[in-house]
């Protein structure tokens, strides 16, 4: 595959164009990666200051009392989105629902371990532990393991 960089003058016209014969998984991954880079989200900090933060720094989104919070390694932001909107909008950025109230970043997931009642714990790279519900565990396995999820 040829890779070219063409310089342009205006920042707002910057774009990534993928030319391909067929949309393969590889192309989808590149598309997904390009989307992730520099995706910024506005959010309210604890001090009620509006700030922009990088999507790839978010460990997980959590819905609490009708509000949705984004947890980065350093800060917690309140965002103006519903959790189902977060799930749909950032699915290509490796975000996936792991319980009714949490959408986690697969790229910042350290691993999983079994909990009681067929559930799993998700161990994030910052040391936090989240619960993966039974209903969502299967979908997460399918995304990460592809066709081999049945083996597990």
């Amino acid at each position, binding site marked *: 595959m040829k890779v070219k960089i063409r310089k342009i003058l205006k920042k707002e016209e910057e774009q990534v164009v993928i030319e391909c014969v067929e949309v393969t998984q590889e192309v989808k*991954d590149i598309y997904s990666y390009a989307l992730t880079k520099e995706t910024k989200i506005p959010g309210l900090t604890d001090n009620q200051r509006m700030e922009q933060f990088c999507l790839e720094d978010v460990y997980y989104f959590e819905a609490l009392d009708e509000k949705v919070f984004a947890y980065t390694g350093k800060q917690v932001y309140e965002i103006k989105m519903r959790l189902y909107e977060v799930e749909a909008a950032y699915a290509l950025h490796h975000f996936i629902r792991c319980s009714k109230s949490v959408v986690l970043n697969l790229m910042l997931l350290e*691993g*999983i371990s*079994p909990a*009681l009642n067929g559930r799993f714990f998700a161990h994030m790279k910052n040391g936090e532990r989240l619960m993966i519900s039974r*209903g969502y565990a299967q979908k997460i396995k399918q995304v*990460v393991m592809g066709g081999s999820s049945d083996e*597990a």
Partner: protein
Amino acid sequence: MKRRDTLPEFVITFLVCTACITILEGVMGMLFFPEEKIGYDAFFSPPFFGFFSVLFGAVTNSKKELGIRQVLFRRLIHLLMIETMVFGLNYVCGITFSLMEFCVLALAIAIVFVTVYGVIWMNDLRSAALFNEKLKVYQNQQLCYNDCGRKTNS
């Protein structure tokens, strides 16, 4: 949780449970009733108890997210239901136990109960280890694109 996801779990639990009950019945029979002769119908006993034991497991399911204490409480209810079923059916069939036999059987049922959950937990552990391996591959694939992007830029 979809039915097609629940069914294999149900079947695995049933098979493990039936195997454990078969062993338990064999050991209990040798210990307490070594002279007893049993017919072919006895072969249906382990799958029968296995099926209903797993079916009673529905009591541990919940649409809500349960805490550890809630899960343990429901498991205790599950165990009590199984114990009641076993002793109740034996009583209905006219089989009575001495206090010693009663205690040993109750304890053995509890051991089978813990063993079944232990086997399922071990299976989950294996499943988690496999997932963690694949997760690293998945993450490395994405990081590879990251590196390729940097090389192109430089």
